[in-house]
């Protein structure tokens, strides 16, 4: 850990500058919603959101709160709860700049950054209108076979990767288990901020079984404890999404007024443990 001055969600939100290229994971992976709330409270603006490879409530609320300038994602949806209304609205009125992608392209572009490469080739995509609307994606020739076109994706190097995990230790090592996309995000990003349910007093490297699923502190700039930090979303192996909240959200957020109401209530929720 390199940013020891970040000790709570307030510090964390203050350390995310306006205009940051912020990488966030999909709902199944561990979304730092408590930190997102702190970001909206601090009034963050002009974010370039990179969704790895899709997003839901997090992108939706940041967009609704006016915090997003650019969004790069393969999808934004509330899943079982239907479309993401603020995202749909922002698209219709051109309030955000879209960089529509496809899941493996976002993974590959992050892997390029993690390998210090300027680009990564990727199969597929050719003939998709995605390509037509992504002037930053190029088509090159496979150098080993004439007449074999292949897409080249420029590396995505996020300024900050932000996610929520079940466990970290005092050194800043973070357990992410099978959620390896979080490892790639941390390798690719300049800085990585993590919120966690619990902080272990012993090193995660003490248990060789655990070690295989650990992001080393070398890649982690700050860890902040946030109990239920993914709420109202769920966290794998820990807790489910808050069904009542998400139903209410999906209904209310269809209008500007309804969204303002649900956002205000969410921002007013009692402070979390670490705040």
């Amino acid at each position, binding site marked *: 850990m390199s940013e020891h001055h970040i000790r709570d969600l307030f510090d964390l939100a203050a350390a995310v500058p306006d205009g940051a290229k912020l990488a966030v994971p999909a709902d199944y992976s561990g979304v730092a919603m408590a930190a997102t709330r702190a970001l909206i409270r601090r009034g963050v603006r002009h974010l370039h959101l990179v969704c790895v490879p899709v997003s839901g409530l997090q992108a939706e609320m940041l967009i609704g709160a006016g915090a997003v300038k650019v969004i790069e994602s*393969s999808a934004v949806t509330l899943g079982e709860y239907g479309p993401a209304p603020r995202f749909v609205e922002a698209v219709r009125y051109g309030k955000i700049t879209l960089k529509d*992608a496809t899941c493996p*392209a976002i993974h590959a572009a992050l892997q390029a950054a993690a390998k210090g490469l300027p680009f990564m080739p990727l199969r597929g995509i050719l003939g*998709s*209108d995605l390509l037509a609307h992504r002037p930053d994606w190029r088509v090159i020739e496979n150098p080993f076979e004439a007449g074999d076109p292949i897409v080249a994706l420029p590396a995505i190097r996020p300024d900050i990767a932000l996610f929520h995990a079940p466990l970290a230790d005092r050194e800043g090592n973070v357990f992410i288990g099978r959620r390896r996309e979080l490892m790639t995000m941390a390798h690719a990003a300049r800085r990585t901020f993590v919120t966690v349910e619990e902080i272990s007093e012993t090193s995660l490297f003490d248990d060789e079984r655990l070690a295989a699923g650990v992001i080393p502190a070398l890649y982690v700039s700050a860890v902040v404890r946030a109990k239920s930090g993914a709420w109202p979303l769920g966290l794998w192996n820990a807790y489910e999404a808050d069904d009542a909240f998400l139903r209410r959200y999906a209904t209310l957020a269809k209008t500007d007024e309804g969204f303002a109401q649900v956002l205000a209530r969410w921002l007013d929720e009692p402070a979390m443990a670490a705040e």
Partner: protein
Amino acid sequence: MNDAPLSEVATRQEFLISTIAGLIAGCGHVAVGSASPIPGSAALLARARSGGAMRVSVLGSLRNNFFTDGGVELFDCAAQGRVDAFFLGGGQIDGEGNINLVGTGAYPSMEVRWPGSFGSAYLYFLVPRVILFREEHTRRVLVEKVDFVSAPGKSDPGVYRPGGPHALLTNLALFDFDRGRHRFRLRSVHPGHSVEEVLDNTGFTFERPQKVPQTPSPDPETLALIRGSVRDEIAEVYPRFAAAAFAPRG
């Protein structure tokens, strides 16, 4: 076919599950993406019938998902040739098999915006047997030409493409996709529906045999499997679906 919970009659969902399971029989590894309870159930049904020969990876599941390399693994696995079947939907699907998961109107400020293309622009190229599955069968969905091509149904010669569309299943009918002619061909119409109804509600032209068969309904053994182990397994990922989609156990 209806939603009534009569144990001898399949619900609409059970019928679709059974039909999809038939389309993926014999596959070694079937992967199921997010928000796909019916394909997920179908894959679990096909696995139950395969006598241990089929693997199934259900995204979002802990118990039926053995990936350990993160979100990229499904895509890598497909590119390695280790995924035999996958499922894609579409806000629009056209007669050449192009699919649109982005929206209608002019990009980017679209009139109707859908979530986005997910992995379609990749998996449609790399998985040999892609099943297009969309319950709604209307001219709004099945169009002559999609407004936005998330993933194309056909590719230029020279484009690396071991995969592509294999079949299209809706609430009304089942189509095969002819990869030589890049057109759909009606294989069967579901019980209670007619070829005329299919023609009326399809925005693209398609081929059809002179006599169109009826899509077979699940036999009692299949229904018992669906309402038994399949329901239990899919409930892990889609509890609300599992509570609503199945008839009571026999």
